[in-house]
């Protein structure tokens, strides 16, 4: 019986130790001064920093389901929003160089994303106009829609 209590205590102690050890581990990415994290617009993220650091995968996944499957178009947790605020001044992107915002941490933490296979890693900007002309040489630009109705 005493033996059992001993093991129980040991297990409890170990549990506590693991929990404490885990906290510094989880904050390791945050504490490490990684290049690229300064790419941000404004002075606040969509959540407090410690929340967005930890929960952004879940927030993004939730928002993706809400938007795509249910047609909810709020912008708070939109991936497009992240890209708009966090694109690098140098590359214009969140994911085209190794110290771009969404790469730097992930490389450090060993996370690989496939998001940018489909999602633009650069915010929407003027270049759209340039492609417009070549894309539809034979028709009126789409924007004039309704003008000659």
């Amino acid at each position, binding site marked *: 019986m005493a033996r059992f209590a001993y093991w129980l205590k040991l297990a409890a102690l170990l549990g506590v130790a693991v929990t404490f050890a885990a906290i510094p581990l989880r904050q390791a990415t945050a504490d490490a001064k990684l290049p690229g994290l300064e790419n941000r617009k404004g002075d606040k993220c969509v959540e407090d920093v410690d929340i967005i650091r930890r929960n952004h995968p879940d927030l993004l996944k939730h928002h*993706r389901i*809400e938007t*795509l*499957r*249910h*047609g*909810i*178009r*709020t*912008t708070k947790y939109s991936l*497009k929003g992240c*890209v708009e605020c966090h694109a690098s001044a140098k590359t214009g992107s969140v994911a085209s160089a190794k110290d771009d915002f969404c790469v730097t941490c992930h490389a450090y933490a060993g996370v690989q994303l*496939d998001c940018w*296979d*489909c*999602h*633009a890693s*650069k*915010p*929407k900007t003027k270049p*759209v106009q340039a*492609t*417009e002309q070549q*894309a*539809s040489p*034979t*028709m*009126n630009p*789409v924007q*004039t*829609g*309704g*003008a*000659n*109705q």
Partner: protein
Amino acid sequence: MTTSHKPDRRDFLKTGAVVAGAAIAPGILFYGIAQGRAPEEGASSLVRWGMLIDTSKCANGCSACVNACNHENGLSGKTGPQDSQWIRKLNIKHLQTGIEHNLPMLCQHCANPPCVDVCPTGASMKRADGIVLVDRHICIGCRYCMMACPYKARSFVHEPLSDQNPDVPRGKGCVEACTFCVQRVDRDEQPACVEACNADGHQAMLFGDLRNPESAIAKAMKAYASVEVRGDLGLNTGVRYQGI
């Protein structure tokens, strides 16, 4: 009453027999678009998006709808067997009379979509407002849906893509198709093809809410004969045609 799940089908068959090609009366508004909805409000089943295409107004040689679709959604515009085409113009000819029709063919946004039935992952889905989509986050690229679709409306992305429109993510390994330009519809705009057709003065495409009796499309469908392509399949398509 029969047990058919499509109460309006009988009417369609009846009206389908009426002489085709009736022009839309001048009084009918083309730009009637549904009431706006707040961003946090999801798609609602009180709405069903649909499209009415008047083939008699669809001009020979015009590709405004196709170009606009390609531009909006970032498609290359190539038409090879491995290239994505979300809308194609078909030319059909009646063998006996020789009459020809242009038929823009796109995802028909069926109420009973076979693509959704066969999808093993739940990626093929129908939104509450009737828009049929591929959730490409869970599409595994098996292409069952492409085989199930009687309209050949879906494409598979074979090569890596770059420089996508931020509003329209697309990528290799997934099936894709016309979304009715869901990104535009959700901000109360018309699909790109419809806008371009109107801008070119053809007005062959009418988009709107089939469930709202006040909408231009519901009024037009009540007034003029329209048919579903392959109506015999009982899919209750959201895209209907006039003049064929």
